[in-house]
C-alpha cells in the first residue's frame, strides 16, 4: 500500500512537471504577471455607476434569453425523455440512439455551442437562445429520464393490463410520477442558464455579456466593473429565488 502511494505520487509529480513545462508556468512567471493583474484591478476602481440605467434593457434581454432557451429546451426534452427511458421506450435501438445523443450533446459546453451558433446565425441573442435550448434539452432529458427509470412500475403495469394504449399509459401512469421531478430539473437548469446567459455575450451571443465585452474592448474598465457587479448581484438574487421555488416543488 505504501509503495503504491509513493508510485502514484511520483506519477502525479511527473504529470505536473510535464504540464507545467508545456504551458510555461513557473513561480517566476506567475510572480511577474501579478503587478499587471493588480494594475488592471486598480484601473477598475472606482466603478462607473453612471452606466446603470443603460444596463436595464440588456439585463432584461439576458433573462428573456434564459427563459426562452430553458422553455424550448424543456419542451423539446419531452419526447427524448420517453425515448431514453428503458421502461417506456419500446424499441431498443431508439433507446440507445436517444441515450447516445444525450450523452454526446452533454459533453459539449454551452459556450462552445454559442460560439459555433454565432458563426452560423450571426452575432446576437438568437444564437444564445439556440445554444441554451440545445444544452437545456440534453440536461433536462438526461436527468428526468434517469428518474423516470426509477418510478414505481405498478401503475404502468396496471394500465397496460387494463388495455390502455401507449398515450394513456404515459398520461396516467408516467406523467403524474415524473412531472414534479421534471419541473424541478427544469428550474435547476434555468438557474444554470441564467448564469450562463450573462456570459454568452462574451462570445457574441447577445445579452449583457456583449455589453461587458464592448466595455472591455474599449478599455472602459470602470464601466466593466459596474457591469460585473450588477450582473453578479442579479445572478445571486435569481439563484436565491429559484432555490426557494424548487424547495416548495419537491
Amino acid at each position: 500500500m505504501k509503495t503504491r502511494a509513493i508510485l502514484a505520487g511520483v506519477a502525479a509529480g511527473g504529470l505536473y512537471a510535464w504540464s507545467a513545462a508545456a504551458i510555461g508556468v513557473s513561480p517566476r512567471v506567475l510572480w511577474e504577471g501579478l503587478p499587471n493583474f493588480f494594475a488592471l484591478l486598480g484601473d477598475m476602481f472606482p466603478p462607473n455607476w453612471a452606466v446603470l440605467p443603460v444596463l436595464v434593457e440588456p439585463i432584461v434581454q439576458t433573462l428573456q434569453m434564459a427563459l426562452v432557451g430553458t422553455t424550448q429546451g424543456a419542451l423539446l426534452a419531452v419526447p427524448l425523455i420517453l425515448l431514453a427511458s428503458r421502461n417506456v421506450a419500446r424499441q431498443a435501438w431508439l433507446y440507445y440512439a436517444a441515450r447516445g445523443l444525450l450523452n454526446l450533446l452533454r459533453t459539449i459546453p454551452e459556450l462552445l455551442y454559442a460560439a459555433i451558433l454565432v458563426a452560423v446565425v450571426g452575432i446576437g441573442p438568437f444564437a444564445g437562445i439556440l445554444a441554451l435550448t440545445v444544452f437545456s434539452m440534453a440536461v433536462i432529458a438526461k436527468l428526468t429520464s434517469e428518474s423516470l427509470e426509477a418510478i414505481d412500475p405498478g401503475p404502468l403495469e396496471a394500465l397496460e393490463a387494463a388495455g390502455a394504449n401507449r398515450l394513456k399509459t404515459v398520461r396516467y401512469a408516467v406523467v403524474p410520477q415524473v412531472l414534479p421531478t421534471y419541473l424541478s430539473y427544469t428550474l435547476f437548469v434555468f438557474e444554470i442558464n441564467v448564469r450562463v446567459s450573462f456570459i454568452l455575450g462574451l462570445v457574441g451571443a447577445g445579452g449583457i455579456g456583449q455589453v461587458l465585452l464592448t466595455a472591455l474592448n474599449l478599455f472602459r474598465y470602470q464601466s466593466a466593473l459596474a457591469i460585473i457587479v450588477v450582473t453578479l448581484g442579479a445572478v445571486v438574487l435569481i439563484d436565491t429565488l429559484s432555490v426557494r421555488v424548487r424547495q416548495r416543488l419537491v
Partner: protein
Amino acid sequence: MTSQASTPSISLTEPGRWKRWLGVALYALVFAWAARGVEASLVRFLEGLPLLARIVWLMLLPDWTWAGRSLRGMVVSVQVALLGTTLGMVLAFPLAFLASRNISPHGASSYVGKQILNLIRTFPEIILAIFFVAAYGPGALAGMMAIGLHSTGSLGKLYAEVVEAMDPGPLEALHAAGASRVKVFWFAVLPQVLPEFLALSLYRLEINARAATVLGLVGAGGIGTIMVQALQFRRWEVVGMALLVIVVAVTVIDTVSAALRRRLV
C-alpha cells in the same frame, strides 16, 4: 372519440385543476413576452434550419489533416485543467478550514472564510480568463489561473462542507489524550477528509476539462484557440475535427475520473 370526450370532463372536476391551467396560461404569456423581446420566433427558427442542417453535415465530415493539431490543442486544454484544478486545491485547502464552523478559530473567521469563498465562486471562469489574458498575455497560463481561481471558490465550499460533516469522535479522543493541535489535525482530521477532498477534486477536474476547452475562445489557449480560428474562417470541417476531439477526450476523462472516484469514496 367517445373516450376523448369523457376524459376531460372527469379531470375538470379535480380540485385545483383550473389553478394549474391558469399557471400554464400565465407562463405562456411570460414566454411570449420574452420571445418577442429577444426576437425569437418559430419562423426564424425554421428558416435557419436548412443552413444549420448543412453545417452540421459539414462538421460530421471532419478534416483529418487537423487531427494532430486538434489533439495537441486538447492536450494543452487538459494540462490547463489539471494545473488549474491543482492550484484550486492548494488555495482551497486552508480557506476551507478557515470557513468550517467546527475547525475555524472563531465564529467570525468562519463567516469571513465562507464569504470569501462565495465571492470567488460568483466570478465565472471566462470573465476571470479575460482578466488574466490582460495580465499575462494570451496563452494557456491565463487559462490555468482563471480555472485555478474559480476552482478555489467551488472546491473550498465543498471541502468546508466535508470538514463540517466530519465525525468529532477521533478529534475529541486525541485531544483528551493530550495530543497537540498539529497531531490532532494530522491523525484525526486529515485521514477523515482527504479521500473526500480527492473525490471532489476529481469531479472538479471533469468540469474544468470542459471549461478549459472553452477558455481558448477568449485567448486563454488550448483547443479553443483552434476552434475560434476555424469559426472565423467558417472552416466547418476543422470545427468538426476539433469538436470530435473534445467529445472523445471529455468522455474518456469523465469515465476514468468516475472510476477513480468510485474507488476513493
